[in-house]
């Protein structure tokens, strides 16, 4: 049992869900860092303020990211967490581990850190919580030996992440795992040597279910999609109806564009109006299959609210064929990053820059044609601002 009294933290253990407090108490039995961490967290709840000082040391030899410096502001009370740095370890694409790989990672962390992990952080990385400054380089050396590398942090390309894709999912329209791995390996320098105005996130989802939430989180989102009609097996549709599924109520009425009709015998889809929400396919996976031609939609500008409000991504390429070596995709990424690097203010995300300068400026700079799918809110605000010279060309 932990030695400290932690009445406030104890309350967190009483809820319905597994509590991190229980894990920390277990870790505290064998690691004094975890013991002091409990104490500091209890004090934070009591004082209603965080007791961490962020920032400082950022990496190991040759790297400018992957380590996040963290120090206690009460080292007098909690000397074992005076330095409690976080290490971000680049996760395997799709978060597939073999058990021996996980054991190697944990062994390294038991040797050099608090033993506490966050598997996984919202960035996707395996987050190793709490080590001291003198252990950073040896820990990195051991991680390297075990086949791991650090991920991105700070004003860098953050560790790209992808859904499980074709590894486990029948709906993957692109090989999200391979694309993510390729991008990760191609842009190692951008990830480890921060030179951007701010963070830049790339996330790859195999289908429009968007299981990595790229549309809301990534500056550059790749979302698998299809061309062509949704394929319908009417026999299976009838089987779903016979098994009790209310197709009208649960499928057609919930279609966001109302592009489906069900007459009690046959299902019809107006594919031109389909926005790829995946609701019908998710619900009747035996009856409906995506169209035959597969590729991805490229979107930009998503971000969570930090300096400015949250932004959802914006379509810039409605359909791109994605096959190795993904030259078209990587060329587009470079053009976008180059423009943002040139014009972005410090701590300005790509979406904010586009909002400030305008989509037409962005499109001209990266050499993309304006297409109807770029209208961000077509059903509520269909307006697009063209360049005056383009209007002159059209209006004669």
């Amino acid at each position, binding site marked *: 049992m932990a030695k400290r009294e932690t009445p406030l933290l104890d309350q967190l253990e009483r809820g319905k869900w597994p509590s991190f407090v229980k894990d920390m108490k277990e870790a505290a039995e064998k690691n004094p860092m975890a013991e002091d961490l409990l104490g500091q967290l209890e004090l934070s709840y009591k004082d209603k303020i965080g007791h961490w000082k962020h*920032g*400082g040391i950022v990496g190991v030899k040759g790297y*400018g990211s992957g380590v996040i410096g963290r120090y206690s502001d009460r080292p007098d009370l909690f000397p074992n967490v005076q330095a409690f740095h976080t290490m971000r370890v680049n996760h395997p694409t799709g978060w597939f581990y073999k058990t021996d790989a996980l054991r190697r990672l944990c062994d390294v962390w038991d040797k050099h850190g608090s033993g506490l992990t966050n598997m996984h952080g919202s960035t996707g990385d395996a987050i190793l919580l709490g080590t001291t400054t003198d252990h950073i380089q040896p820990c990195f050396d051991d991680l390297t030996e075990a086949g791991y590398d650090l991920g991105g*942090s*700070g004003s860098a390309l953050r560790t790209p992440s992808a859904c499980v894709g074709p590894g486990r999912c029948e709906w993957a329209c692109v090989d999200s795992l391979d694309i993510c791995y390729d991008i990760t390996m191609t842009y190692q320098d951008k990830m480890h040597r*921060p*030179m951007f*105005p701010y963070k830049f996130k790339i996330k790859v989802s195999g289908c429009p279910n968007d299981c990595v939430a790229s549309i809301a989180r990534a500056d550059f989102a790749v979302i698998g999609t299809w061309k062509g009609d949704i394929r319908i097996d009417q026999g299976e549709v009838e089987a779903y109806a016979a098994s009790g599924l209310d197709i009208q109520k649960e499928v057609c009425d919930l279609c966001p564009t109302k592009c489906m009709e069900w007459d009690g015998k046959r299902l019809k889809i107006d594919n031109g109006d389909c926005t790829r929400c995946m609701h019908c396919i998710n619900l009747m996976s035996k009856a409906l299959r995506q169209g035959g031609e597969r590729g991805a939609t490229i979107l930009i500008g998503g971000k969570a609210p930090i300096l400015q409000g949250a932004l959802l991504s914006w379509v810039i390429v409605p359909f791109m064929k994605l096959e190795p070596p993904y030259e078209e995709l990587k060329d587009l990424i470079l053009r976008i990053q180059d423009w943002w690097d040139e014009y972005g203010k410090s701590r300005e995300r790509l979406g904010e820059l586009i909002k400030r300068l305008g989509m037409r400026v962005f499109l001209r700079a990266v050499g993309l044609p304006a297409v109807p799918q770029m209208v961000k809110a077509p059903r509520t605000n269909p307006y697009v601002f063209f360049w005056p010279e383009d209007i002159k060309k059209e209006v004669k």
Partner: protein
Amino acid sequence: MSDDLKAKVLDGFRQKSMGDKKMFYIREVVRWFPDEDRQAIQTVVKELLDDEVLRYWSSGSSTYLMLAEFFPKE
């Protein structure tokens, strides 16, 4: 050319670090030299980092650059 620019960038850091401010965004460094190529400056900054004359400082979300001699001691 690279050595000249490297010296110029290093001198820029020394000049700008004379006041209280010691940490700079890469955007600020690029702006000190409006006539120079942005990517060339980034390249020499990386060289200066390799030489351990400069160091990164990061809050976790943003990264700054500073002269190694001013890097805070623990």
